[in-house]
């Protein structure tokens, strides 16, 4: 082997070592917000819009990390194993509860500690603007004849749960079918394949603004400020409300000071006029919950979901 070759080999090995040890130390406080959503997905967009405002109010550097895979299982595992020093949080959505219940991930939702809640995604029932159904009652009457067709965005999801429970509580027997996401289902509402769909307000906003959809009911405790004319399900005589949460969770064992800092910052954040305009445009509903409330809420949400999945035989 020529000498030149050996020297270049050594140089390469040196570079190799440098490449491996390339972890850079960051003196500033860095807070990583982990989401299971891909860049551009629902939770990702939510976090990226949140981050500059958090940095302004709380100081430090906030970054968003997409830990995809396993429908949230990987993100949960990453957060559960992290040090509870306030440097790593997980953006919670109902997905992490469903994944915990539907499969056997290495860390479940109960292995994380809910920190605070920020928002709710308003869930609505809607139909096409040119459909023959103008009210929820029309849709329910149709379903009473055994002809109704309802849609939910995903097979094992909060929307499915809403539709199944509505069917039970209203005592009607529609066919309920599921899709791969809100967009897929939206088409089937627009082309009148479905009488009614259940989904997030955000997903249907463009069609709603264009006057192609009609809201039938809000599946929450209160009416939406953007649509004061649309009554909740409870107001329409069906005792059903869900809250699709968006908040943060961290590893177990976070200190009281850490929790208190977030509990103080989030209400200020939600009142911030600039941010407020942004999240109202994105159809998010402010829903601050302090640590204690959030933990109890999560426990109840998990128990309710588990009961639903068990009762319907999705899990044994």
């Amino acid at each position: 082997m020529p000498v030149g070759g050996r020297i270049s080999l050594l140089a390469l090995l040196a570079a190799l070592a440098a490449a491996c040890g390339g972890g850079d130390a960051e003196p500033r406080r860095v807070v990583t917000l982990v989401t299971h959503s891909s860049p551009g997905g629902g939770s990702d967009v939510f976090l990226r819009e949140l981050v500059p405002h958090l940095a302004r109010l709380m100081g430090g550097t906030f970054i968003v990390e997409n830990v995809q895979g396993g429908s949230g299982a990987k993100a949960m595992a990453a957060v559960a194993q992290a040090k509870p020093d306030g440097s790593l949080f997980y953006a919670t959505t109902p997905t992490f509860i469903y994944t915990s219940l539907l499969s056997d991930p290495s860390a479940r939702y109960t292995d994380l500690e809910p920190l605070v809640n920020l928002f709710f995604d308003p869930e609505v029932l809607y139909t096409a603007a040119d459909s023959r159904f103008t009210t929820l009652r029309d849709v329910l009457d149709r379903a009473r004849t055994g002809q109704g067709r309802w849609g939910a965005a995903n097979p094992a999801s909060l929307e499915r749960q809403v539709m199944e429970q509505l069917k039970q509580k209203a005592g009607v027997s529609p066919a309920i079918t599921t899709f791969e996401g809100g967009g897929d289902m939206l088409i089937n509402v627009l082309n009148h394949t479905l009488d009614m769909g259940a989904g997030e307000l955000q997903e249907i906003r463009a069609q709603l603004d264009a006057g192609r959809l009609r809201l039938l009911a809000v599946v929450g405790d209160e009416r939406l400020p953007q649509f004061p004319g649309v009554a909740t399900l409870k107001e329409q005589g069906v005792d059903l409300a869900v809250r699709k949460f968006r908040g943060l969770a961290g590893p177990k064992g976070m200190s009281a000071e850490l929790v208190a800092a977030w509990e103080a910052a989030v209400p200020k954040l939600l009142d911030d006029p600039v941010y407020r305009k942004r999240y109202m445009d994105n159809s998010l509903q402010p829903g601050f919950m302090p640590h204690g409330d959030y933990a109890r809420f999560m426990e109840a949400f998990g128990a309710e979901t588990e009961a639903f999945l068990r009762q319907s035989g999705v899990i044994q």
Partner: protein
Amino acid sequence: MSLDELIAIVPAAFGGVTWGIFGGALPGISPSITMALLLPLTYGMDPTTAIVMLAATYVGAEYGGSIPAILIRTPGTNAAAATVMDGYAMTEQGRAGEALGISLYSGFVGGLFGLGVVVLLAEPLSTVALAFTPPAYFALGVLGLSVIASLARESLVKGLMAGVLGLMISTVGTDPVTGLSRFTFGSPELLSGIPPILVMVGLFAVGELLAESGERGWHQAAPERARIRFPSPALWRRIALPQAIGSVIGAFEGMMPGGGGAVSSFLAYNEARRWSRRKEEFGRGSPEGIAAPEAANNTVACTTLVPILSLGIPSSNSAAVLLGGFLLHGLIPGPMLFVSHSGVVTGLFAGLLAANIAMLIVGYVLMGPCIWLVSRPRPYLTAFIYALVVSGVYAIETSLFQVGVALAFGLAGYALRYFETPLLPMVLGVILGFMVESNYRRALVLSGGDHATFLQDPVSAAFLTVAALFLVGSIAGHALGARRRRGAELPA
């Protein structure tokens, strides 16, 4: 549009296309991952530049995917799977440069056609997406599966077996109706199913590495390969029809949510073969077999904008990332976008034109280096394809588990080669299985279990008729071919 805006758009288009070709050419890194990786960089840009850059990435990635399909028999993207057959056959004949030229040129033609469709007809065509009900999607899937008959070469039975195995693989994951986990063994990694690209990279790339590992030695590839050629006038005329077929099929596929580039490339390949005057060359290095699918997938990259712009509904993963790009810049795509932000829409159209031209230029420049890379001595090539596979597959979900799955499919690919069974029917089964099953069951839920729904829906009825005619035709063809072979032996 002002000159300033134009000045910002052109570099964005070039940057996006280069990035896209690059990501598309790495097996495992799909167009949507390539776009998603770019997304954080676009936060600081103005909305038009950001959207143009993302859309240009998609355009570039669709061409990029054909580079490894042609050169190393490994599709870089789902939509390049159909290009593997004739592309790699041409490479083996020392015509790699020609094959890449045809792919690039056909992609350009398809892209321009798609752009024309989007600019002129976006609003009226948005109704196409609305015509697609669950029975129609089911029928589209069946039509796609009927292509297996023409991919099956000598043995229809073995081709169908591979197709059914592919359908079986597609059932892994969350059940589309009940949400039950099927064949996941409790693993969250399998909840969302096995991505088709894993199967393709495993069957083609890893399978090939295993199959050729019996040959030892340092023989080098033919140096003649490095000649880059654009189609000659005679070839232009020959590939015009397949390009037209690919463009039209791609234009429609792009508009339907869930259709996507892969289905359109296979259908385009199949139709191009059916209408070709040189059917026998297909699968053995036919330029038409590259022109049709590559025109189709680049048309899709443009017409996928129709449902996004006019309905606000993403029709594929890549479109979903684009939608995220819109949302991050405070734009809500949908019917109102043309009114509220018409500047962004015009800018996007101008950017796509620039992107298609950029693709031609960047693609041409990159061809030489790519061909040089694959003409290295065989052992190096083997080793670096292996490295590319383990690195690229990991990127899908940053998962070593999935690297393992790809290796397992490599073993399956090795077995299928041993049993002389074509690989593409399995790929097609994996790509279409979920669409077929979920929409079959959805349609039956909606019809109350009545199978007549598939004939009552006009779109579904039309697709199913075409699929049935095609299947009967090719089974008759196979039988006739077998009889003729037997007949030819008798005198001897």
